[in-house]
Each structure stands twice: as structure tokens, then as C-alpha cells.
């Protein structure tokens, strides 16, 4: 954490000098006034210099990116984290050599990383963010796979006239299935069970 204590004739002067030392601007820092400063008689006697403590505010998203990088380096040393911020949603893109290790079986390691980073980021920041951790386009590839799976299983449900139960998935993967089949006539979808075993059921509907 970067912080300096600076003094000046007035609080304003002190803050200014601190900002110069930290090479930053006023909206990037927290200011704590330690001594108000007094103008003495004729500016000579009993004058007190103002003292302030200025701390550079940490950017929580940058912190989270560093945190993610630190963990990801346990898997592959050359990992690169790219951050994109869109409204309340932060996407961290991982790329590097042994990226398959970071994704894990059915993305379980990636999902765990995403969860941990989200918890960490929302602890640090005042605004709530939604975190997406992606690696080598995994999320969009997974989405395509899930949509394929959904249409295939919906066919099966219609043919056999029986409900098809999918394996448990996290909420955003279930959402992909639901929205893929929303427009399809002949089936309806709903989720059943309690987290973390909540899963989609595809049910054929009578015409």
C-alpha cells in the first residue's frame, strides 16, 4: 500500500505536495488530516504546519487480477490475465501454455477460480461485481456444446415421451440450456434439486 505523510502551510498545500510525491490525482487517494495547521501571529509565532496522511486507493479490480494471476501461476508460469470491465461485470481472460490444467474437468477448476475471485473482489470493493473467469474461449466453446446437448436431449425427450434429466450444473450453464430450448415447441425445461446438485429436466409437453 502506497502512502505518504506530507506537511504544508495549509491542509490544501500539504495534500498537494503529497500528491506530487505519489504522482497521482486527488480522486485516487484517501486523505486523513492529522494536523489542521494554524496561521500564527503575522505568520510567524505559534504557526503550525498542516500535516496530512495520503493513501493511494487500491483499485479492487486490479487487485483481483493480480490475485488471480498469482493463483494461476501455480498451474503454468507464463499465464497472462486480461481484464475487461463492462457495467457490473468483470471478465478475466487467462491465456498461457498449460491452460487445460486451469480449466479442469468440465471447467470445474475454472469455475472454482471464478467463484473465489468473485468473493475476493466483492470483499474489496464497495460495488458488487459479477466475475467471469475465462480461458482460451472456454466459456463460448462450452456454451456451444451445451446448446448442442440441449437440442439432442430435447429430441430424445420428444421421441421417448419421457423426461430427460441432465447432470448437475452451475446456474449459468443451466441458463444456457433453458434459453436454448425456450423457443422449441414440444418440450419445457425446469430445474430440480438443491444446489450444488441442481439440474435441468427436459420434459415433453402434450400437444
Amino acid at each position, binding site marked *: 500500500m502506497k502512502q505518504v505523510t506530507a506537511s504544508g502551510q495549509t491542509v490544501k498545500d500539504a495534500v498537494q505536495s503529497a500528491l506530487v510525491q505519489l504522482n497521482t490525482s486527488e480522486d485516487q487517494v484517501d486523505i486523513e488530516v492529522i494536523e489542521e495547521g494554524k496561521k500564527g501571529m503575522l505568520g510567524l509565532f505559534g504557526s503550525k504546519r498542516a500535516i496530512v496522511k495520503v493513501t493511494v486507493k487500491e483499485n479492487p479490480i486490479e487487485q483481483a487480477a493480480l490475485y488471480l494471476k*498469482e*493463483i494461476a501461476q501455480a498451474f503454468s508460469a507464463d499465464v497472462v490475465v486480461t481484464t475487461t470491465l463492462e457495467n457490473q461485470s468483470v471478465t478475466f481472460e487467462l491465456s498461457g501454455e498449460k491452460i487445460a*490444467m486451469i480449466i479442469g474437468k468440465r471447467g*470445474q477448476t475454472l*469455475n*472454482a*477460480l471464478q467463484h*473465489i475471485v468473485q*468473493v475476493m473482489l466483492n470483499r*474489496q470493493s464497495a460495488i458488487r461485481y459479477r466475475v467471469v473467469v475465462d480461458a482460451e474461449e472456454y466459456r463460448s466453446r462450452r456454451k456451444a456444446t451445451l446448446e448442442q446437448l440441449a437440442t439432442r436431449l430435447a429430441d430424445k425427450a420428444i421421441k421417448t415421451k419421457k423426461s430427460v434429466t441432465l447432470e448437475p450444473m452451475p446456474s449459468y450453464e443451466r441458463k444456457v440450456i433453458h434459453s436454448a430450448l425456450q423457443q422449441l415447441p414440444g418440450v419445457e425445461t425446469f430445474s430440480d434439486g438443491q444446489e450444488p446438485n441442481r439440474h435441468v429436466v427436459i420434459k415433453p409437453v402434450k400437444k
Partner: protein
Amino acid sequence: MEALITSIVAPLVDYPEDVHVEVKEEQNKLVFHLIVNEQDVGKVIGKNGRIAKSIRTIVYAAGTDTKKRIYLDIM
């Protein structure tokens, strides 16, 4: 490995300086005991153990290149 666990856990708790990891080697497994401040136990475990589960997933995945099985105990 201890460093990884500490760096995962430290930013999640209120008392990062109280985060310790102890290693116990048993026959076919390595057991890591994660010790945090009493007040932070809930933060490491999370709702329905979700955070604990995520930490374990990451640690186990990172430990696949070691020969022994890895366990993570949170206390």
C-alpha cells in the same frame, strides 16, 4: 503448495496474518491443515461450504503433478 494456499486464503479473511498452513505427510497422502483466525473460519468455509469447496478444487488441481494424494483440512 503452502504458498499457494496462503495466497488464496489471505485476501479472503480479516486477519491475513493469522493464516497458517501446516503440512503432515502420511503414507500415501499429504495433508495440509489450514489454520485461520477464529473469526475468519466462516469466511473460508462460506455458505454451504462453497468457498471451501472452491479452494479445495483449486488446490487439488494444482497438486496433480505430485505423486501423493492431497487433502486440505480447514480448522
